[in-house]
């Protein structure tokens, strides 16, 4: 069952098309990543999906219902955590959480807050004002707020910004566990590619307001079809260089190491290695590096930059 169906969503701010005919579907229980460079349209998309900004055109179906006509019911069933917007700074952590628990009509709000606060380790901060917290602590409080109503759909907009690696790991584990236990659908944006790879079942990459590719992390990375090869030569490095030149392979030299990119297919890498052996240019060490989601992200961003320059 599709929890979210977005169809031809458009949002313009003046002459700038922030979101341009975006369509996608997210299934129940899925962790869906929305990636893109700054200004790609991710946050504007989430703002529209959460009812904060109204779209110029297009439709949003949440839980099988037209969101524009069922905002109250849908909003009761989802929640949002973002690193960029605070809760009320002059109020304490407890005061903020109890207000939102009551706003969402949470049963046994005190127990719920205590339970979630224990998981996200903010129990000691109950009496502290939000404005006195570190950015990591604030992110955790916002995460607790976002789970108060047991959301069936959770929008996490760069929610781990400011968390130290250990806390970020704990947070990811809790979110994964919550997703597993409750079947909650999560829509996730982040600039930490490793985090996205670890969490998301499926990813869409946005650029200039459009979705340019969708798939799981592995599929997207395989689109790159290259891999980094590092060969170490203790002698005959010049012979190795001329062999690569003959094959029109662009390489870099780092001491006794030659680094180059090849098609990510065995039939391309292995024949080249065989040729080195045939021509008696022995290498001491070989290191093959598969591309990562980060490489994909960088390639997509640069591709779009260069198409812009043209």
């Amino acid at each position, binding site marked *: 069952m599709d929890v979210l169906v977005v169809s031809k969503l458009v949002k313009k701010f003046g002459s700038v098309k922030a979101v341009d005919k975006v369509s996608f579907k997210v299934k129940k229980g899925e962790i869906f990543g929305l990636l893109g460079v700054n200004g790609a349209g991710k946050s504007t998309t989430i703002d529209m999906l959460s009812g*904060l900004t109204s779209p110029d055109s297009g439709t949003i179906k949440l839980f099988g219902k037209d969101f524009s006509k069922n905002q109250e019911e849908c*909003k009761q069933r989802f929640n949002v955590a*973002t690193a960029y*917007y605070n809760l009320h700074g002059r109020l304490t952590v407890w005061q903020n959480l109890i207000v939102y628990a*009551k*706003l969402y009509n949470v049963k046994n709000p005190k127990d719920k807050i205590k339970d979630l606060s224990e998981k996200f380790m903010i129990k000691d901060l109950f009496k502290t004002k939000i404005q006195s917290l570190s950015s990591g602590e604030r992110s955790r409080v*916002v995460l607790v707020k976002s789970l108060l109503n047991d959301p069936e759909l959770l929008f996490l907009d760069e929610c781990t910004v400011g968390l130290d690696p250990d806390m970020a790991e704990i947070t990811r584990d809790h979110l994964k566990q919550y997703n597993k236990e409750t079947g909650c659908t999560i829509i996730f944006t982040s600039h930490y590619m490793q985090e996205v790879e670890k969490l998301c079942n499926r990813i869409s990459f946005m650029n200039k307001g459009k979705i340019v590719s969708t798939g799981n992390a592995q599929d997207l990375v395989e689109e790159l079809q290259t891999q980094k090869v590092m060969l170490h030569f203790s002698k005959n490095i010049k012979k190795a260089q001329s062999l690569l030149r003959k094959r029109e392979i662009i390489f870099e030299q780092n001491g006794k190491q030659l680094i180059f990119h090849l098609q990510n297919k065995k039939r391309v890498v292995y024949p080249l290695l065989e040729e080195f052996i045939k021509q008696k240019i022995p290498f001491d060490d070989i290191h093959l590096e598969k591309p990562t989601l980060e490489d994909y992200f960088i390639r997509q961003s640069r591709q779009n930059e260069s198409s812009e320059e043209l």
Partner: protein
Amino acid sequence: MKWYRIKALLLNYWYISFSSADRIFDILYWPVLDVLIWGFMTFFIQGLSDFNIINSIMGGIVLWLFIWRGSQDLVVYLLEFYWSRSVYHLFISPIKKIELVISLGILGIIRSLLSFIVVSVLGYALYSFNVFNFSYKILFFIGVLFIIAWAIGLFIGSLVLRFGTRIQILAWSVIWIIQPFSCVFYPLSALPPWAASIASVNPLTTIFESMRIMIAGGTVELSVLWYPLIAGLVLLALMSVVFSSAMNSARKKGRFAKPE
């Protein structure tokens, strides 16, 4: 509309009120200063007239409180969401426009009543001004004043939604532009013709003129009060539409997502 959401917002305002000296000062400091300054000045000019000036001035202060607090609190507590940048979390929650407005309206009533109690006690202690000397019709006056106060508050609130915090000064200032043309402390007849022509269409003038008639021992026919009541209700309905459209426009322009 869900009452639990209105209660949650009231709880939020309660916490805000006690976390800020400004918000407590609003209830106590300015009303008390008003009573002292106007009261002492009235002592000074009392000898000039047979009319009970002290009661007239105190009545003006007491009734004006409802317009002042009712309108200003609606805007200031709306601004609180902007100042704290928590407007994002508020509007992704299931809260409805009507719930937000009702909660702000109730807040205005509570804070006005608190100021009213303070001013009444102080007025009685210093000038023997007794609010219970007014007839039951004072309750009708207060009701109409709240209706007009909310209409003014919604108008300024709409401007905040449209233009953001850069016009926040209006939250404190608009009400004082209206006051000179509302005959709060002086009769309509005391105004120059150009000002009287403005004041005569202002529904607040009828309320304060009626209050002075009551203080002078006269009778105020309820029929006189139809005009301010109807004008107030029309204004409130109109401003509710303006507020609702400002809210829709703020969503359209993405202002809740990117507050200043």
